[in-house]
């Protein structure tokens, strides 16, 4: 019943959707904010993208990220090197901030996606699906791999005059991972999963009654 009605998060307009099952992006008639996206094949694609991202995440963290050569001496950085140096310098706030936003939260989100959508792919709705979806949504703005990418580019531009910068395997994996995660995020539609969670809850309630 409620599936055919939507309330806009941005302007509170109540709108009726006459074709809820048709693929596409649904927008608020008043303020044109996105209501939801319906794309078939979402579960398979998100599962596949996030499995790939998980693999690339491991590659990005294991192999060398960037090397910097100036006048005979060189320094090498891994993905997490900055966190160690910042921590050593006593800048625990920055070290913690970077650790959370570029490693802990992104990895946690990728794992949650893999578990939740892997289960859905195998036609099983996990017991803690509600909590998983809530975490995925709440952590979305705090995973900042794409911002880190821009930061790395700016640093490269800043340093390129001083010496030679050699990109490592990890940098390529990192770039690919960002593209894949962006593709996954663009088709992510929690609406379909919430609907299934709602159906299950209704069934459980009816069984109890």
């Amino acid at each position, binding site marked *: 019943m409620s599936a055919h009605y939507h309330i806009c998060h941005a302007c509170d307009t109540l709108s009726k959707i006459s074709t809820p099952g048709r693929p596409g992006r649904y927008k608020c008639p008043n303020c044109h904010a996105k209501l939801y996206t319906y794309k078939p094949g979402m579960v398979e694609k998100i599962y596949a993208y996030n499995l790939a991202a998980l693999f690339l995440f491991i590659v990005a963290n294991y192999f060398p990220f960037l090397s910097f050569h100036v006048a005979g001496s060189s320094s090498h950085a891994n993905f997490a090197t900055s966190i160690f140096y910042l921590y050593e310098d006593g800048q625990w706030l920055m070290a913690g901030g970077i650790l959370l936003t570029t490693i802990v939260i992104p990895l946690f989100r990728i794992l949650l996606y893999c578990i939740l959508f892997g289960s859905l792919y195998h036609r099983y709705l996990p017991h803690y699906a509600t909590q998983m979806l809530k975490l995925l949504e709440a952590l979305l703005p705090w995973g900042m791999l794409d911002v*880190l990418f821009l930061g790395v580019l700016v640093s490269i531009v800043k340093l390129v005059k001083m010496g030679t910068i050699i990109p490592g395997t990890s940098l390529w994996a990192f770039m690919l991972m960002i593209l894949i995660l962006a593709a996954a995020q663009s088709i992510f539609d929690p609406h379909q999963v919430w609907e299934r*969670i709602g159906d299950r809850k209704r069934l459980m309630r009816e069984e109890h009654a």
Partner: protein
Amino acid sequence: MRGIERGLTNCPVCHAIVKVPAAESSQTLYCPRCDSEVYLRKPDSIQKTWAFLLASIVFYVPANLLPMMNVVTFAGTQSDTIMSGVLYFVETGAYLIAFVIFTASIFVPILKIAILIYLLVSVQRRSPLHRARRKKLYVLTEIIGRWSMVDVYVVGTMVALVHFGGLTEITPGMGANFFLLVVIMTMLSAMSFDPKLIWDNHIKESNAQQ
């Protein structure tokens, strides 16, 4: 037709439509589908948004005055604030880089703070003007909010790369810490704001006129 007129709202997490009891009871309402807290408008939205916003303005001062990073060479230590970094690139003629850094580290944070002040003041004054445009501004602040972190990552990457065991080193400055706090506070501020408030008085006024 708006949700508030029908006593309906949507769950902020799972978007399910929930009926809010007519009597304004103090009892908290929970979503029947995902058990999140449900409300017609975010509770204490304006106060929370102001609080985080003021905190970000306070942190913005040391973020700009204290050095973002220190370049340590055998010739001595040179400290760079955000502005001196931009000026360095202007002087050396790298205008594009200067522009990128200026936009990300100076223009965007000020823009975010200005937009949030404008939204808060206009909602508090129940202004009926430019509702659609104000909603767009809100969406813009939500999107650009996290991109200010770019500065913190630049400092991190520079510290990691320029590390030649005592000869030449870049060490982080206190300014970067405050800048991180500015970004977090403006993000929390934007999250606390309820865009539905922008449209609220509009309906009440047009009903009163009829």
